């Protein structure tokens, strides 16, 4: 069974307080999460995926001080995972992106990205909180349905339904706004 956001966060905070067992439990729990994250996004041999997983574990360990205890742990984790993956692609390593690498790279041009983000944030605010959170997690932060479900402590089908309903409502709003 995969660990929940609360469990991961508790282990992380334990590690930050100096508890080695808690830190080890966290790293072990991250392995399947990261493998899944990278397999869905990059194609290559299992060995290369494992290299990336290990690199990310090292980063999580070395930079754990940058985790803010009041924030969501999985958001911090996947931001690091995504950064490591883009860095890997940029350096022209063996893994190749499955899709959407252009989007990942374009998002680096921060001015455009932040403008677009503000538009999106404005629209998302008009939705019920659960739908907005589900869309934000799966469509903006690039988490999978399973990751989003863990992060928000709700079922996978609940995430899917929220995304579907939210997008439908947004579509209606945007088209309505144009007319």
């Amino acid at each position, binding site marked *: 069974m995969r660990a929940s956001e609360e469990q991961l966060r508790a282990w992380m905070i334990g*590690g*930050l*307080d*100096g*508890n*080695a*067992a808690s*830190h*080890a439990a966290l*790293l*072990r729990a991250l*392995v399947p999460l990261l493998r899944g994250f990278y397999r869905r996004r990059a194609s290559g041999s299992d060995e290369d995926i*494992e290299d990336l*997983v*290990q690199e990310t*574990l*090292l*980063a999580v*360990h*070395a*930079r*754990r*001080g*940058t*985790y*803010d*205890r009041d*924030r969501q742990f999985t*958001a*911090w984790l996947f*931001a*690091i995972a*995504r*950064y490591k993956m883009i*860095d890997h692609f940029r350096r022209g390593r063996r893994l190749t992106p499955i899709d959407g690498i252009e989007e990942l790279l374009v998002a*680096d041009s*921060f*001015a455009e*990205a*932040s403008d677009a*983000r*503000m538009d999106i944030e404005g629209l998302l605010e008009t939705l019920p909180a659960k739908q907005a959170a589900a869309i934000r997690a799966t469509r*903006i*932060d690039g988490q999978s349905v399973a990751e989003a479900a863990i992060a928000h402590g709700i079922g996978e089908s609940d995430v899917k339904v929220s995304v579907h309903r939210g997008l439908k409502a947004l579509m209606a709003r945007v088209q309505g706004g144009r007319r």
Partner: protein
Amino acid sequence: MNTDHLIEQLAREVPPVRRNVVGLRIAIGMIAGALISVLVVILWLGVRPDLADAMRGPAFWMKWGYTLSLSVLAIAATARLARPEPSGIGGLWPMAVPVLLLAGFGVAEMLRAPPTTWLAMWLGHSWRVCPWIVLILAAPIFIGLLWSFRRLAPTRLRAAGAAAGLASGAFAAMVYCLHCPEVSAIFVLTWYSLGILLAATIGALLGPRLLRW
């Protein structure tokens, strides 16, 4: 190496981490760099001889208020971008407040002075060198911040570089006040800001290369 083995090794050394370690590291890097900048001012440019008198007048505090408020905002942005979170430099808009306030001061000053002196107020005695000195004084602070970033985790390297450049430039301008005898608000608004912007631009250019981890 086997992943389980790696985890075992990593879990062997788990020192406790302080809550405010990001802020602390940025502060250490900035202060260490700024001390070098202060030394450069003392040894190369010289502290203005009338500093004690100047500190009793409004012009000095106008300059310090401007550069200090920009520094605080830029450091806050740098600290935000030092964490792996999807935030851009959109949070910098409060910087418009000190800029607009200073512009207001500048206009008020000009209205009180005869138009024939406006050009002299704007160019002062040192407009040719001011932006460059600010940029030079920003370099040690920027290097200090690069040291800070070695243990931090920026994921938007260009934005983080720009914020670090901005923070170094604004802080360097504060240090430069120890030497600079200029008194008009439009001088500061133009030439100080130009130096700060140069530092931010160079930071944005260098960020993707130097902040990778």
